[in-house]
């Protein structure tokens, strides 16, 4: 249990008598101090808004809306300070002696370690993943409410305002609080292990990244309590609807800042870690494709995310400070530009969909290579196509605006770039297919989700290419065809890869094996009812049913009922996953270090890994997918106490049914 750190006695100065008249529990970083600081943060918000309004002669000086908005910044930030996320930096900035890092708080021994500021990437990875799945279930519950409302024509149990709020929060939670962070979480756990590093480059920043996330989610959820209801202008929050809504809209604008900073800090961390901390011998072209995928995603995140932050700052300024960025009716020469919101928003939000997909591509590469027992076909083109998607992803944003009324000529280059981006994506699909070809396929749960992904994402990609064609997009824009496309690529695409990754790395992360039969049941129910839910939406969309509507024309009634029933079963099927994960984590069979007989470095250490990952830094001597080459290894460990023989690729031998042809 003791960590192998230097044995020299740590010199401690006698602790100076503190002048803070608080009991020790409130002086030490932790939840009690965080609660106290939250109160201080709220007081700060009241004080500063009152002061500024008094100086500006705005009466009443105490304004509920102003206090709400400022508290949404100050309370979470004070909470983080109280929790201890900024302790080291604040001490350092104040010139005080910083507490020496003895790594005793690194790692997790009890469940309590998961509820504090912990710098171990493995703990942070699990914190991220569990938090994200919590928001998956909340967002999924909101989806169930949507489908209840839409099961029959006419209004059901939600008012129109509430319904608009429900689908807005549904999308926002699933995008910013589930898909984006869960990939960050899985990569947080796996990536340093995969490159032979003891942790991420910036462990403290990593901890801060995590803690920003639940704060953003709580802000989003609290919008339901705001006067006027939750934010209800879609996750896209177009101005001027969003700038003229009740204060609940501000919960989106501000919550997104927290989620955005979480994302940006993590991406920075990944970039530095990947560039500087790879084990000796791991050149870029010996990195596993998961590392390539997260490298590419991190480039997207750091460049694009500031744009959504700024779009929401503009909305905040218009709504709270009376500015006119998006106000078309101020007066000649002073008008704002309504369409500018969409350009700024989509300049992030299109790369965002690649942020939500590229890590999934990395996961699929890992799973398919190991489960088909073959190298990834066309490794170099797989890496280059990731980079191509990063670059091209910034050139297509206005395909979300074909009917927006923007200058018509912009549509043409956007159609071209949107079609071009299908080429590197297609290369990846075909390469995965070629990897399956002549492999030895182990059809367990992770592999089933990977194969399901190939099918679903192809369909989503096909509907995407159709949408690139402007006349077709004009017809189906803002109809259920778009809803179908979105869910095929985000559910059939991203979520399937997330499930594949969670099942695949579950033994490594928890030291236990999941129940594969339950996993397969989860897969088949999900696959079947996903298609029954979202397949028909292509049809009713082309038929003309708009999206984001609380009720619809009678002719769509039958399909909507069918979709709703399928959706309820789809929702229930996630409970199988939840049961499997929880019960396996608590009492499943212990997992071996390398149950999948994989070559990548994370599988060469115990399950779960030692607290600092590697007893000695491994040396990488070959590619990560050298299956089929007898005796090939990816990395070697020169630890003299190791009694585990290196895992090599198995012999490649064909059963009689497959004869050599080449």
């Amino acid at each position, binding site marked *: 249990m003791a960590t192998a750190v230097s044995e020299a006695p740590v010199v401690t100065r006698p602790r100076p008598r503190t002048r803070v008249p608080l009991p020790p529990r409130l002086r030490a970083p932790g939840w009690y101090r965080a609660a106290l600081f939250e109160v201080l943060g709220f007081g700060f918000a009241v004080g500063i808004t009152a002061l500024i309004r008094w100086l500006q002669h705005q009466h009443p000086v105490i*304004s509920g*809306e102003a206090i709400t908005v400022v508290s949404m910044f100050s309370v979470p930030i004070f909470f983080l300070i109280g929790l201890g996320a900024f302790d080291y930096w604040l001490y350092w900035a104040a010139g005080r002696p910083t507490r020496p890092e003895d790594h005793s708080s690194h790692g997790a021994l009890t469940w309590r370690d998961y509820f504090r500021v912990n710098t171990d990437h493995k703990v942070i990875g699990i914190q991220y993943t569990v938090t994200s799945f919590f928001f998956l279930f909340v967002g999924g519950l909101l989806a169930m409410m949507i489908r209840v409302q839409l099961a029959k024509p006419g209004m059901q149990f939600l008012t*129109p305002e509430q319904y*608009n709020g429900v689908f807005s929060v549904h999308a926002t939670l699933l995008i910013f609080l589930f898909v984006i962070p869960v990939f960050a979480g899985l990569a947080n756990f796996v990536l340093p292990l995969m490159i032979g590093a003891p942790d991420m480059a910036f462990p403290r920043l990593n901890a801060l990244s995590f803690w920003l996330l639940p704060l953003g989610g709580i802000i989003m959820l609290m919008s339901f309590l705001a006067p006027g209801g939750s934010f209800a202008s879609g996750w896209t929050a*177009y101005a001027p*609807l969003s700038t*003229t809504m009740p204060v609940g809209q501000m919960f989106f604008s501000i919550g997104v800042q927290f989620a955005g900073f979480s994302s940006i800090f993590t991406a920075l961390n990944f970039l530095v870690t990947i560039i500087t901390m790879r084990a000796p011998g791991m050149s870029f072209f010996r990195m596993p494709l998961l590392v390539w995928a997260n490298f590419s995603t991190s480039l997207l995140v750091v460049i694009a995310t500031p744009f959504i932050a700024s779009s929401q700052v503009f909305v905040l300024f218009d709504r*709270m400070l*009376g500015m006119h960025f998006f106000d078309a*009716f101020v007066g000649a020469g002073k008008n704002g530009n309504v*369409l500018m919101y969409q350009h700024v928003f989509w300049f992030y939000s299109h790369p965002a969909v690649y942020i939500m997909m590229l890590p999934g591509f990395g996961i699929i590469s890992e799973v398919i290579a190991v489960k088909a*027992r073959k*190298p990834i*076909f*066309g490794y*170099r*083109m797989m890496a280059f196509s990731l980079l191509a998607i990063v670059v091209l992803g910034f050139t297509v944003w206005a395909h979300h605006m074909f*009917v*927006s*009324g923007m200058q018509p000529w912009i549509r043409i280059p956007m*159609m071209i770039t949107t079609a071009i981006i*299908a*080429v590197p994506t297609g290369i990846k699909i075909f390469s995965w*297919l*070629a990897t*399956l*070809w*002549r*492999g*030895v*396929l182990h*059809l367990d749960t992770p592999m089933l989700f990977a*194969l399901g992904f190939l099918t679903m994402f192809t*369909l989503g990609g096909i509907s995407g*290419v159709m949408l*690139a*064609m*402007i*006349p*077709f997009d004009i*017809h189906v*824009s*803002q*109809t259920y065809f778009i809803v179908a496309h979105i869910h095929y690529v985000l559910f059939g695409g991203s979520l399937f890869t997330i499930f594949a990754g969670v099942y695949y790395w579950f033994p490594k992360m928890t030291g236990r094996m999941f129940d594969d039969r339950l996993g397969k049941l989860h897969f088949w129910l999900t696959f079947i009812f996903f298609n029954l839910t979202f397949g028909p939406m292509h049809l009713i969309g*082309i*038929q*003309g049913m*708009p*999206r*984001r*509507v*609380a*009720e619809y024309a009678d002719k769509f009634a039958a399909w909507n009922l069918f979709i709703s029933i399928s959706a309820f079963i789809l929702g229930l099927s996630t409970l199988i996953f939840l049961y499997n994960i929880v019960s396996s984590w608590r009492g499943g069979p212990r997992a071996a270090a390398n149950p999948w007989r994989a070559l990548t470095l994370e599988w060469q250490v115990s399950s779960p890994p030692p607290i600092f990952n590697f007893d000695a830094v491994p040396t990488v001597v070959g590619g990560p997918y*050298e299956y*089929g080459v007898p005796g090939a290894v990816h990395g070697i460990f020169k630890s003299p106490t190791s009694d585990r023989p290196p895992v090599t690729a*198995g*012999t*490649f031998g*064909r059963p009689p049914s497959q*004869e050599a042809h080449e």
Partner: protein
Amino acid sequence: MFRNRPIAQLVLIAVIGCAILIPLALLVPWFPTKASTQAGNLHTLYYVLLIASVPIFVLVETVVIYSVWRFRMRPGQERADGPPIHGNTRLEVVWTVVPALLLIGLISYSYTVLRANEKSHRDAITINVTARQFLFEFSYPRPGGKQAVSSVLYLPEGRPVVFKIRSLDVIHSFFVPEFSEKLDAVPGITTTLRVTPTRVGRYPVECTELCGPGHAFMRSTVYVLPSSRFDAWLAAQPANGKPPVGIPPSFARQPGVPG
């Protein structure tokens, strides 16, 4: 004959798959009734897209299902690996170039459809569409600078129409599924949409941009009348509306906003 030639088996299955799925896909009643020249062009484009898409899906699916059937791990292979095939340059070039060519073809065709659908006609009649929370208002320019205002849209069959679309508050969108044409109504600008109705009938007008709690209910109706009946209708309308402007008399902000 096919037993030991997996590629040939694959191609056969894919061809059969396409032969079944393409007609099925084309038989699905995707679209509402075609009621404009634009819709006619778009429906054809969509069927071409379907015909191009089905083989791709069938190809991917065939490889997946075939691989699962043919290459799944059999007893005795638990510790076996597959052959260490890292790539095949010729194959990779083919599957880069062929999709690119296909996409170039589809883009070019779409471009011609777009040009045809948005062609301006000198004899087009102009109709103003004003959108606000939560209704559409249509106004027809009449001689003398006046407008005939209506909450229901009447159009002549067979004559090109130019819609000038405005919004008085937030972004709305003007969509008639049977026309396959749609354009947003954006406050502060006037957007232009061209449609040539070709079928007498009654069709829904829908708002397709989230505009507030009334968005789902923001609908109207368009009646396409035979040309002479449309002229008669228009002549009989009182022309007492003022020309539409995009700027309302007062633009009230939400309470609580400072300033």
